[in-house]
């Protein structure tokens, strides 16, 4: 038991939730008679959820900063239709279409960021308005028609890594990618370990580290095997590749950069952040703008996957993305959450969805179960905080929160509180 704790506790905060994800996969693998972990199904799962996961990356930053974005589905749809039109009517090549879409996302984000950060309207309201606005724009611009996109553009949403090199029976590029990823994980953890040791910080025992690495690398290589041995013509999907790159970039930004620190600081205690010299308005603006850029990207990937843009693209996406973030351990009050956690949270929802489908559970029951999972995940979070102790499930979620400190309400009331409210 102690060994397990060491393995799943400690510095890697996401391990608890990953454990829950693995348990879910194993459960479905057993009860679907092995239909869950087949190359076809796994590729499908990634293709069908990549755009939600991309939204979750942006959404977790928004939620860490203490806001919310309800407009992402509509923004995605609007960018999708506008880009499809631009390519059809103005003859833009696919790459220019993508750039145009990202730019459009940035402009929309600047619009929403302006109202949230500089005018001070709650993001809930601004993006609720945005949800209506951009849904309307989508249908206005596209005249509620579906607009097909070129084959090149479709590659963005439904392409695979090409076949290169000798015929090994696997997709070579996918294999290469898997090996590089595994090597990357090993090198990074060993480097972190060496750094921590040099600084005199606590490091887990060697066997813990090794076991952990073996498990992670095993998972990566197994996934690689699944992706590389799919039906001919399929391999690691392009949306998955985009997602992986984004996770790396945003994980790095959130964890390692000054900007990332500022997002957490503003969400954790805006006044304290401002009195430490953080420009909270700028941070809020950036976070909201970034969300719309990613929404635009998600919209384009979806259009690529479904070969055409339509008037009802992206309906309900905001809710899926928000659910992923909260299952992933973010706090409703802001200041807490991680990019990896949100991806894991999104995958939990995706696996649940997929597994229930494979089991032949109807859409009605699936919705009910998903709703309960979301409620349960957040309820445990709230319960743990109010109790100051952890239940068993709480323990699973434990490593997933940035910090799980018990916060006691302030006993003293003074003029300061009035000032802080006014400031």
């Amino acid at each position, binding site marked *: 038991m102690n060994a397990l704790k060491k393995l799943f506790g400690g510095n890697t905060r996401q391990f608890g939730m990953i454990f829950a994800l693995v348990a879910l996969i194993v459960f479905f693998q057993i009860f679907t008679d092995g239909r869950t972990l087949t190359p076809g199904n796994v590729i499908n799962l990634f293709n069908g959820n990549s755009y939600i996961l991309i939204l979750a990356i942006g959404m977790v930053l928004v939620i860490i900063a203490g806001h919310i974005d309800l407009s992402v589905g509509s923004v995605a749809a609007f960018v999708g239709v506008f880009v499809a039109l631009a390519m059809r009517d103005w003859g833009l090549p696919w790459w220019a279409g993508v750039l145009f879409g990202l730019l459009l996302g940035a402009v929309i984000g600047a619009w929403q960021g302006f109202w949230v950060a500089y005018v001070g309207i709650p993001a809930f309201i601004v993006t609720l308005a945005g949800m209506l606005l951009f849904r309307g724009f989508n249908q206005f611009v596209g005249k509620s028609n579906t607009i097909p996109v070129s084959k090149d553009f479709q590659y963005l949403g439904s392409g695979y890594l090409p076949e290169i090199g000798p015929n090994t029976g696997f997709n070579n590029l996918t294999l290469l990618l898997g090996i590089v990823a595994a090597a990357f994980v090993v090198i990074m953890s060993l480097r972190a370990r060496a750094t921590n040791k040099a600084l005199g910080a606590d490091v887990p025992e060697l066997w813990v580290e090794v076991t952990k690495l073996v498990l992670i690398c095993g998972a990566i290589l197994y996934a690689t095997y699944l992706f590389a041995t799919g039906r001919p013509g399929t391999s690691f999907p392009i949306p998955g590749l985009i997602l992986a790159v984004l996770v790396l970039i945003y994980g790095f930004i959130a964890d390692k950069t000054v900007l990332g620190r500022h997002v957490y600081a503003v969400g954790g205690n805006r006044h304290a952040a401002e009195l430490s010299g953080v420009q909270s308005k700028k941070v809020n603006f950036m976070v909201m703008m970034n969300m719309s850029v990613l929404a635009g990207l998600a919209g384009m990937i979806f259009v690529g996957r479904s070969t055409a843009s339509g008037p009802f693209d992206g309906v309900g996406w905001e809710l899926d993305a928000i659910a992923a973030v909260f299952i992933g351990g973010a706090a409703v009050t802001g200041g807490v959450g991680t990019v990896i956690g949100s991806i894991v949270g999104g995958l939990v929802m995706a696996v649940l969805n997929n597994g229930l489908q494979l089991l032949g559970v109807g859409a009605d029951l699936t919705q009910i179960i998903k709703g309960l999972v979301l409620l349960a995940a957040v309820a445990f979070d709230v319960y743990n905080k109010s109790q100051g102790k952890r239940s068993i499930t709480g323990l699973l979620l434990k490593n997933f929160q940035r910090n799980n400190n018990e916060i006691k309400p302030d006993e003293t009331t003074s*003029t300061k509180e009035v000032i802080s409210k006014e400031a």
Partner: protein
Amino acid sequence: MTTLDTQGEPILLEMRSITKEFPGVKALSNVSLRVMAGEIHAICGENGAGKSTLMKVLSGVYPYGSYTGDIVYQAETQQFKDIRASEAAGIVIIHQELALIPELSIMENIFLGNEPTKWGVIDWAEARKRSLELLARVGLREDPDTPIKEIGVGKQQLVEIAKALNKSVKLLILDEPTAALNESDSQHLLDLILGLKGRGITSIIISHKLNEIEQIADEITIIRDGKSIETLNVKRDGVDEDRIIKGMVGRTLESRFPDHEPKIGEVFFEVKDWTVGHPQIQDRLICKGSNFFVRRGEIVGFAGLMGAGRTELARSVFGHSYGRFIKGQIYKDGKPIQLRSVRAAIDAGLGYVTEDRKSLGLNLLDDIKTTTVAANLRAISNYSVVDDRKEFSVAEEYRKSLRTKTPSVEEGVAKLSGGNQQKVVLAKWMFTDPDLLILDEPTRGIDVGAKYEIYGIIQRLANQGKGVIVISSELPELLGLSDRIYTIFEGAITGVLDKNEASQESLMKLMTSSRKAA
């Protein structure tokens, strides 16, 4: 139904040996208070002496059973279990922060929770009639339909009293009623309280403004360190401000400060004619043309009662982070500088440790190392990427040099004790390497041992040639620590005393009146 005291005067209220403990602190210890029917009774004491706690016990905010001792009111022992119970008995408390709803009208506020009804429906005609009567009684000429947010604080205070009168109040408790009022509003309010006395309503008034107390109170009970010290009869004992101050600060000074030989250099930081408006209320000034300066290596104290404008002054100087800047000029090393944002202030070499650690100073979700570097991320990052190794070693360095008690710098700050949290906040600002560090109530909520250590840190900073401003409500602390002390009253600097000429009495005098020191 009243009992009489030995001189045959009727007693309205007697609180006997009230003791109230919070975890780890005895807020009230054996406090007794006796209030005669129909008098104005003042309660005086320093911040934190226990005045408000005592009133919360009386009004049922702290219910019967959570304290020990007896409350005898109208000759009966009372067991108030909440505010409703005490209000039903005719005891109404008006808090310093008014409990009015800004969006509702005067009339709606007066009758809130107490609406006159007819067949279960609010009888607005009756409400209107009664509110007109009540407003006339408190001398407020306003349409009862005016929203609260459209009238000033002084008039809002009157609405609170009208609300109390509507509850057929017998004992009115006013907590710092004039703290937010200007002089003429204050005078009107005091006259009203005297008028109510004429109609047989007893008042208990808590105030820091001793001149007002001297003016209207019949009796004064002084509370110090959670104990009732004495009760003075204003007329019989010939009480004046000096007499009250003596009672309030009469505690013995303990040697609680490390030895320190100041090495004071020349003036390097100066603020002139600093004038700042209230963030919301037009025409109200929170800093009135303040002038002050700090020398290198000097610890400068700022003394003032709560609400006097100490924090507001410090925060507005620190990058205009509070209030509406109107005019004033900051000079550093003789050169005029503009500090329009917190960032600019930090870059110019200022640091500000906030009074309220939990709501303004710390992100309680963060760990120690993240907090330590939060105000100077530039120093530990390359191309805006944070260097974990530097972050960790910086945090370790401060943990060791400030002797912060924690298993590791990766521990969350919320888990630390108040003293250790304050050390982390100090570390955060020391890491920005400021020339001038402003400390707002640096030892609030910190135990004696940790206080001593914090004083040591402050003195070390001064020895390094930095200027330190200490804002504190604890006069012994200022006297023990500072080389020079400014006093603030109602947003204006009323005097400055050197270490050797300052005493609790002289400071308290300057802190409680607008009389300029000679």
